[in-house]
C-alpha cells in the first residue's frame, strides 16, 4: 500500500522539479505521472484506502483554504462589475459546456457534471501565472482574480446542486444551509477565543487547523452531505477569525495532499480500450474557444478593449483543481476520464498562452493598426 504511494510521490517529485525548471504549471505534470503509473499506463500503482484518504484530505484542504479567501465582507463591497464579469463567465461557459457534452452524446446527468467542470477555471494556475509572468500591475489581473472568486462561490452552489440530484434535494439543501449558519454563528461567538489560540500558540494553532478540516470531513459524512461543501463553508466562517494564520497552517497540508490527489486522479483514470479520444479533444477545443468568447465579452465590458479579453483568456483557459474536484466527487469513470484529458490539454494551452499573451497582444495590435 505504502510503497505505491512512495513510488507515486517519487515520480511526482521528479516531475515537479522538471516543471519548475521549465516554468510550467505542475498540475498537468502530476496527472501525467498518474496516467503513466496507473491502470491505463504501466499499471504499477493502484488506488487503496490510504491513498484515497490522503487524496480526499487534499481536496478538503484545498476547499478549506479557498473558503478562507471567501470573506463575505470583502465580496459584498465589490459591487456591479464583479457580478457582471462573473455572470458573463458563468453563463457562456456553462451553456457551451453543456451543449457540447450533449451534442457529443453524453446523457443529461453527465453533461451537467461536464459543464460544471468545463466552466470552472484553475485559480491555482491563474495566480501562479500572473505572478510568474509579471502581470500583477495590469488592470486585467484584478478582473481575472475577481472572476476566480466568483467561480469559487459558484463552485459552492454547484456542489449543493449536484449533490442534491440523487435523493431529496430539499433535505440536502436545508442541511447544508443550517450547517453553514451554524458554522458562522459558532465562529462569530468564539471568534475571540479562536483568534487568541491562533495568534498566540503556533503548535496549538496548527493542530486546530488540521483538526477543523478533518472534523469538517467527519461532520459531512455523518450528515450525508458532501465534505467539499462543508470544508468551504467552514473555511469561509473561520475567515472571521485569523484567516492569514489558518492559511499559513493549512497551506503545507494542502500542497502535499493535493499532489497525491492529482497523481491518484491520473492513476484512477483508464484511457485505454475504446476511450473516446476524438470526442474529448473536441470538448477540450470547445473549452478553449468558449473561454475566448467569454473573455472577449468581459474585456470589452470591463476595460472597453478586446485586447484585454485576450489577457483574461490567456489566464482563465487552464482548467485544473476544481474541475478535477467536481469530477472526482460527482463523475463516473467516463466523465472523470473526459475531465482529466480536458484539464491536461487546457492547462498546457493555458500555460503557454499565459506566457506568450504579451506577444499575442502585440501581434493583434499591429494587425489592427494596418
Amino acid at each position, binding site marked *: 500500500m505504502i510503497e505505491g504511494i512512495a513510488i507515486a510521490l517519487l515520480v511526482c517529485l521528479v516531475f515537479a522539479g522538471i516543471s519548475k525548471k521549465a516554468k510550467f504549471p505542475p498540475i498537468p505534470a502530476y496527472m501525467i505521472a498518474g496516467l503513466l503509473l496507473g491502470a491505463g499506463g504501466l499499471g504499477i500503482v493502484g488506488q487503496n484506502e490510504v491513498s484515497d484518504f490522503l487524496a480526499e484530505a487534499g481536496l478538503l484542504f484545498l476547499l478549506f483554504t479557498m473558503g478562507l479567501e471567501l470573506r463575505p465582507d470583502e465580496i459584498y463591497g465589490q459591487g456591479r462589475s464583479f457580478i457582471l464579469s462573473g455572470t458573463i463567465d458563468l453563463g457562456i461557459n456553462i451553456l457551451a459546456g453543456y451543449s457540447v457534452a450533449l451534442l457529443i452524446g453524453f446523457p443529461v446527468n453527465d453533461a451537467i457534471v461536464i459543464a460544471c467542470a468545463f466552466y470552472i477555471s484553475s485559480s491555482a494556475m491563474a495566480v501562479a501565472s*500572473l505572478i510568474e509572468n509579471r502581470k500583477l500591475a495590469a488592470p486585467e489581473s*484584478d478582473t481575472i*482574480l475577481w472572476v476566480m472568486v466568483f467561480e469559487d462561490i459558484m463552485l459552492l452552489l454547484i456542489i449543493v446542486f449536484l449533490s442534491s440530484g440523487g435523493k431529496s434535494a430539499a433535505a440536502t439543501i436545508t442541511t447544508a444551509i443550517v450547517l453553514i449558519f451554524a458554522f458562522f454563528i459558532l465562529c462569530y461567538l468564539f471568534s475571540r477565543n479562536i483568534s487568541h489560540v491562533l495568534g498566540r500558540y503556533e503548535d496549538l494553532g496548527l493542530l486546530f487547523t488540521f483538526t477543523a478540516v478533518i472534523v469538517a470531513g467527519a461532520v459531512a459524512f455523518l450528515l450525508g452531505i458532501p465534505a467539499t461543501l462543508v470544508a468551504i463553508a467552514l473555511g469561509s466562517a473561520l475567515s472571521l477569525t485569523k484567516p492569514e494564520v489558518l492559511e499559513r497552517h493549512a497551506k503545507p497540508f494542502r500542497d502535499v495532499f493535493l499532489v497525491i490527489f492529482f497523481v491518484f486522479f491520473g492513476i484512477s483514470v483508464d484511457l485505454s480500450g475504446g476511450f473516446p479520444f476524438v470526442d474529448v479533444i473536441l470538448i477540450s477545443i470547445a473549452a478553449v474557444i468558449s473561454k475566448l468568447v467569454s473573455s472577449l465579452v468581459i474585456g470589452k465590458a470591463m476595460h472597453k478593449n478586446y485586447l484585454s479579453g485576450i489577457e483574461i483568456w490567456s489566464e482563465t483557459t487552464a482548467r485544473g483543481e476544481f474541475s478535477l474536484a467536481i469530477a472526482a466527487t460527482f463523475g463516473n469513470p467516463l466523465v472523470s476520464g473526459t475531465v482529466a484529458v480536458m484539464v491536461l490539454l487546457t492547462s498546457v494551452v493555458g500555460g503557454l498562452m499565459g506566457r506568450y499573451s504579451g506577444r499575442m497582444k502585440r501581434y493583434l495590435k499591429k494587425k489592427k493598426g494596418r
Partner: protein
Amino acid sequence: MSFVSRDMPGIGTKYELDTEDGDRVSIVYMEDEGVQLYVRSGEGDYCSADLTPPEARRIGNVLTGAILETEEEEICMVFSSFADLKIKMHTYKLGDRTAGRTISDLNIRKSTGVTIVAVSRKGESIINPPATFVFERGDSVLVIGNPEQMKNFEEEFVR
C-alpha cells in the same frame, strides 16, 4: 498624489501611484512573502522586479533618503519630522594622534562639533564613553554629527 490600494484575492494587496508626469508605480505585496514592483512609463513601457522582503526594505530606505552605505561604514539618516536635518553616523579607526589621551583632553566636541557615541576596542563596544575615557591605539570610534562636523573630525583626528 496618493497610493490607491486594491485587494487581490489569492495574491495579496496592490498599491498604485500615478505620478504627476503620468508614470505609474505599482507595488504588489504578496501573501506568501515577497513584493513585486512594477513601473510603467507614460509611453506605456513596463518593467518589473521580483523582490524578497529585505530587498524591498532596502529599496524603501533608499527612496526615503536613508541611504545605507555599508562599505564606507556610514549611515546618513533623515527623519520625516526633522526634514531639514541630515545626520550622519560614521566609524573611524584611530591612530597615534589620539592614543593615551582622554576625550576631554582632545576637546573633540568643542573643536569639531561631533559627539563620540561609542568606542570599539578589540571587539568590545563601550557605548557613550565618559569624558575621562582614555583612547588606545587601534580603537574604533562611532561618531555622530552633520556632514561639516564630520569633515572637521576627519581632518583633526583621523588623517
